[in-house]
C-alpha cells in the first residue's frame, strides 16, 4: 500500500536535489537557502511518506471519513520548528562571517591547506631526511 | 434558501476566480512595478473578496462570519503593503518613466530644492533593489 504518490515523490526528490546542490556551494547564504529547501523536502517526505491523506485529524464527531495519519504531522511540525531555529542560526553565522571577514564563504581550512602544501613539497622532494620532531614544519604560517 | 446561497456562490466564485486570473495577468503584463501594484492591489483583492463572500454563503453558521472577518482583514492589510511597495518603487526608481504622463511629486521635490536624486543614473545590472 503506497502512501506516497509519484508527484510527491518527485517533488521531494527535486527538493532534495536542489537543496543539496545549494548545500554544496561555498556561499553560506546559498547554503542557508539549500538548507531551507532541504527542510521543506524532509518535512514533505515525513508527511507524505508517513501517512495517507485524509480528513484533517480532528475529532469533531461529525464525520467518520478516514482521517490523515496525525503522527507524521506532529513529527513534521516538530521538524519545521527545529529547521526554523537552525535556519536563523545559520543566517546569523553567515552574518558573523561576513562581518568578520567581509564575505560569507566557507573557505578552506588553513591547517589542512598547510599540510597539503607540505605534502606536495615532500612528494616532489624525495629526500627523506626530515627532522622527526618537526614532522610538519610550520614556517609558512 | 440553499438555492439562493448556491446561486450566490455560483456567481461569485467564477467571478472572483476570473478577477484573480486577470490580476495575475496584469501582474505579468503591466510594464513597471507601480502599475503592477494596481493589478495586485485591486483585481486581486476584489477577486479574493468575491470568493470569500461566496464561500461564506456556503459555510454553515458560525464559520461564515469568520470568513467575512478574513475579508475585512484583507481589506485592511492589503493597502499597507501596496503603499510601502509603491513608495519603495518610486524611491528606488522602479517606475517606467517612458510611460509617465506627469510626475507632480518630482515637480514638488524640485520646488523644495531637493530634486529627485540619481534620476537617469544607470542602476547597472543589479536589478535587485
Amino acid at each position, binding site marked *: *500500500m*503506497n*502512501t*506516497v504518490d509519484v*508527484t*510527491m515523490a518527485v*517533488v*521531494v*526528490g527535486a*527538493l532534495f*536535489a*536542489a*537543496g*543539496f546542490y*545549494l548545500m*554544496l*556551494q*561555498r*556561499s553560506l547564504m*546559498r547554503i542557508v*537557502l539549500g538548507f*531551507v529547501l532541504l527542510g521543506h*523536502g524532509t518535512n514533505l*517526505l515525513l508527511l*507524505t*511518506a508517513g*501517512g495517507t*491523506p485524509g480528513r484533517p485529524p*480532528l*475529532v469533531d464527531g461529525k464525520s467518520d471519513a478516514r482521517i*490523515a*495519519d*496525525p*503522527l507524521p*504531522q506532529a513529527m*513534521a511540525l*516538530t521538524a*519545521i*520548528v527545529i529547521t526554523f531555529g537552525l*535556519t536563523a542560526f545559520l543566517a*546569523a553565522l553567515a*552574518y558573523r562571517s561576513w562581518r568578520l571577514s*567581509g564575505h*560569507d564563504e566557507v573557505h578552506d*581550512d588553513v591547517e589542512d*591547506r598547510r599540510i597539503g602544501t*607540505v*605534502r*606536495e613539497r615532500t*612528494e616532489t622532494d624525495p629526500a627523506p631526511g626530515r627532522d*622527526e620532531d618537526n614532522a*610538519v614544519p610550520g614556517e609558512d604560517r | 434558501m440553499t438555492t439562493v446561497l448556491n446561486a450566490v456562490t455560483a456567481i461569485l466564485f467564477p467571478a472572483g476566480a476570473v478577477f484573480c486570473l486577470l490580476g495575475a495577468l496584469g501582474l505579468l503584463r503591466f510594464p513597471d512595478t507601480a502599475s503592477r501594484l494596481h493589478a495586485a492591489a485591486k483585481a486581486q483583492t476584489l477577486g479574493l473578496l468575491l470568493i470569500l463572500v461566496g464561500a461564506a454563503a456556503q459555510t454553515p453558521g458560525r464559520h461564515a462570519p469568520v470568513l467575512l472577518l478574513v475579508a475585512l482583514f484583507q481589506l*485592511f*492589510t492589503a493597502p499597507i503593503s501596496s503603499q510601502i511597495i509603491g*513608495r519603495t518603487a518610486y*524611491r528606488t526608481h522602479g517606475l517606467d518613466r517612458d510611460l509617465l504622463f506627469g510626475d507632480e511629486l518630482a515637480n514638488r*521635490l524640485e520646488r*523644495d530644492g*531637493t530634486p*529627485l536624486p540619481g534620476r537617469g543614473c544607470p542602476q547597472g545590472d543589479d536589478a535587485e533593489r
Partner: protein
Amino acid sequence: MLFLLAAHAAVAVAILWGQRWLGRAVWTVAALTPLATVAWAATRTAGVLEGAEYQETFSWAPSLGLTVGFRLDALSLLMLWIVAGVGALVLLYCRYYIERDAGRQAALLLAFAGAMTGLVLADNVFVLYVFWELTTIASFLLIAGRGKREEERRAARQALVVTAAGGLAMLLGLVLLGQSAGTYRISVMLTDPPRGGGVSAAVVLILLGAFAKSAQMPLHGWLPAAMVAPTPVSAYLHAAAMVKAGIYLVARLAPALAEVAPWRPMVLLVGLTTMVLAAWHALRATDLKLLLAYGTISELGLLLTLLGVGTRNAALAGAVMLLAHAAFKAALFLAVGILDHRMKTRDMRELSGVGRRMPVLCTVTVIAAASMAGLPPLVGYLGKEAYFEAFLHGDRIDGHRQLTAVLVLGSALTVAYAARFVKGAFWGPPHETVRRAKPPEAGFVAPVAVLAGVGLALGVGYTWTGALASAYADAYPSAPDGPYELSLWHGLTPVLGLSALTLALGGLVHLGRDHLSIAPRLPDVQRAFDRTVAAADRVALSVTGRTQVGSLPLYMTVLLTTVVVVPGAALAAGAPSLGSPLPWKSPVEPFLAAGVLTATAAVVATRHRLTGILLVGAVGYGVAGVFLVRGAPDLALTQFLVETMTLVVVVLVLRRMPSRFSPGRTMTRVRVVRATAACALGIFVTCFALVASAARTAPAVSSQYAHRVGETGAHNIVNAILVDFRALDTLGEISVLLVAAVGVVSLTRAGGRGEARTSDGQRDVPFPTAHWDEPVRTWLPGAGERPGGERSVLLEVAARLLFPSILALSLFLLFSGHYRPGGGFAGGLVAGQAFVLRYLVGGRSDLGVAVRAPAGAVAGAGLLLAALSGLLPVLVGGAPLESAVVTFHPPVVGTVKFATSLFFDCGVYLLVIGVILKLLSAVGVSLDQSPAAVETAPIRAGGEKEGGTQ
C-alpha cells in the same frame, strides 16, 4: 608479594615528594626497597629450591582474564635476585654518578625496579604484560631524561616504539594463547600446555615481543641508541633488567611451548644470529659503552638460544648465564660509568693507562670481563661449559652440532671483544686526561666490586649456583644420560676443548683486530628504523594531505556520495518493488508540485540573496499548500508562519550584506560533479520513498490516537500528540529553538574582534521624501525614538490598530489548539509576528516598550514553565509530563473542561515569543543602528545586555 610492589611505588612517590630535603640521601632511601626485596627473596629461597611455590591472587577484572596473580618459583626467584640485587647496587652507585635531577631519576629507577619485580612475579599473562609495558614507559622516561638533546628524544622514542610494538604483538599473542589454553594463568599453562592451530600464531607473536624487548636482531637498533641515557640507567635497564624481560618471557614459556612448531627454529635462528652479528659489531665499536651494548645484544642472543631451546641442560646453562651476565655486564657498565664520570670520555682511543691510575677499579673490572670471556673459575666459565655440553650432546635439538659450531664462534668473538674492552679501557700508557682525573671513591667502586665478586663467588661456589639454576631447569625432563651437574672440572671432555678453542680463537681475533676494518660492514639497522619512521610520516602526510583537504564542498560531496552509493547499492541490489503508486492523491497536487518545482529551480538559478529567500518562501507556501491538501491544517498553519518568520529573520540579517552572492569561481567540472551528486541523491530519495512506502504492511500505530485522544480532552489529535502524547519531543524542540536563538544573539552581538566592514562604507543617504510621512501623533509609544526618515504614518496607524487584534488571535490559537488547528507554536508565532510588526514600524525602542521583560527571560520562563509542568505531575503521583482533564462547574458558566497540558502549551507559547523577541533584539542590535547608538540606547527589549552588565 603485592606489598613489595606497593613498597616500590610508595617509596618512589615519597622520593618525588621529599627530594628537596632528602638531597643525595634519596639514593640510599631508594636502595632500601630493592634491598628489602633481596632480603625477602632470601627468606624464600630455601623453600623455592625445595619446590615450594608462593602465590598471591587478587581480583581485578576476572571476566577479562585479568586476575592479579603473583607466584614465586625458581625462575622468578632467580630473576628477582638479579632485578633487586643489581637494582640496589645501581641505586647506591648513582649516589656518586648522578648529580642533577636526582629525585626524578631515583623515583623512576625505583619505579622501574618495581615494574621488573612485578614482571618476574606475575602469574597472569596480562599482569605480566602490564608490567612489561610499565618497564617500557619507565625506560622511555629514563632514556629521554629531560629531553634536552635531540638524540635523547630520538633514542627514547625509538626504544618506546620498538618495544611497544613488540609488546602489542605479544599482547595479541598472549590473548590467542590464553584463548587456546582456556586460562590466562601462567602456572596453569605450564602444567597443561596449550596446543592447537592458534598456538603457533601466538608463539610467533609472543616471540616477536620478546625479541623486541631483548633487542634481538633485527629489532636491536634501539638498544645502542639508548646508550645516551646515563650509564647507571644503561647498566640496569639495558644490561641487567629490562632486556632480560624478553629472555624471562621466553624462559618462562619455553617449558610449555618449546615444542610448538615455529618456536625452536625462530629462537635458534634469531638468537644465534644475534649472538654472532652483535659480537661482530662490538668488535668495531670504539665507544666503550657501545661496545658493551653490542656485547649485551650478543649475550642476549645467547641467552635467548639457551633458555628458549627447551632442553634441560640448555636451560640450566641459560639460568647460569643469566646470573653471570647480570653480574658481569652490570659491573662492566658501572665501571665504564666511573671512567666516563671521571675522564669525561669513554672513547677507548682517548683512554689509556687507567689501569695504573685506578688499580682497584681495573682489577674488579678485569674480573668481570674475564667472567664475560668465560675464564675459569668464574661463573661465566660455568655457563660456557654448560651450554657447550647442552648443545654438543643435545640430541633432542636438530642439527645440534652445527649449532655448537656457531656457539663456539660466538663465544670466541665474545672473548675477543672482552679483550678489546679491557685493553681499550685500561691498558697502555697514561693519557693526559687520565692523569688529571681524580680516582673514584671507594663507595663508587664498591658496587662494581661486589658484582665482580658475585661473579667469582658464583663460579667458585658452583654447587650453590647449580642448585639455583637446576631448580628452574628441572622443569624439563632430564637428558637420558642423567642430569648434567655444574662443575669447574669435568675432566678432559670435548667440551673443555671447545672452551679452550674459544679462548684461542678469541685471542687470535683480538690480535688480528687491525685487519677487522676491512671486514664487511654489517647493514645498519639504525638507518632502517629511521627510514621506516620517515616513511610512516610520509605516508601519514600523504594520506592526510590527500583526504583532509579542508574544503567543505568537497567533504559534503564525499558525504553525499557515500550516503547515496552505500545504501543505494543495497537498495538496488535488493530490487524491491515500487508498488503501484498513484500519480497523485489529489488533483490539486500537480499544480502545487508545478509551482514548487518552478520556484525550486529558480532558487537554484538565482544569484541574488533576496530573490533567493523570496523564492524559497514561495516554495514554502507551496509546501504548506500540499500540507493543507493532504489534511494537515496545523502543519500548513505553522509552515506558513514559520516561512514568514524565516523571511523576516533572514531579511533582517541580510540588510547590510551585499545583494549578490559572492561571484562564483567554480569550475564547470566541479559544478557538474556537484550537480550529479545532488541529482543522484534526489533520485535516490524519490525511489527510496516509493519503495519504503510500498513495503508497508503493518498498520500505523497512530490509528490508536483517534481512540484515545478523548482522554486528553482534545479534539485536535495533532495538538494532543504535541502537548500530551509526545510532549517530550516538543520539549526537545523548544530547547532547540531556544538555544538557536541564544546562538543568534551570541553571533550577532556587536563588536566581534574584527569590526564590521560594510561593503563600501557609505552612509545612508535617505530619499528626500523619507521624512514626509512621519506621523504627527505618537501612535506607538516607542516609535518616537526612530529617526523621522524611517517612519510611516500609514504603517504606524495600521500597526497600532492591528497589534491588539493579532495578539488576541494568537491567544485564540493558543487556547483553541486543543480543538482545532492552532496551538502553542502557532499562537506564539502569531504573537511573534505582532512583535515583528512593532519592531518594523516602531523600531527597537518601541519593542522595548511593548515588552518590558528581557527576551531571554521570557524564553527562559517558557522553557521553565514547560519543564515544570512536566515535572509537577510527579508530585501528585503521575508520570512526568502527564496531563489530566479537570472538569469543574462554576455557577453561571456551566461545565468547564480544562486539560492541564494547556500549561505546557502556554510554556511553548511563551518560549516562542521569547525566542522571536530574542531574534529581533539580536538582529536589531547588530543591524539596526550604528554601533555608537547601540552602546547608548536604553535597551530593554532583548537579551543583548545579559551578563555584560553584571
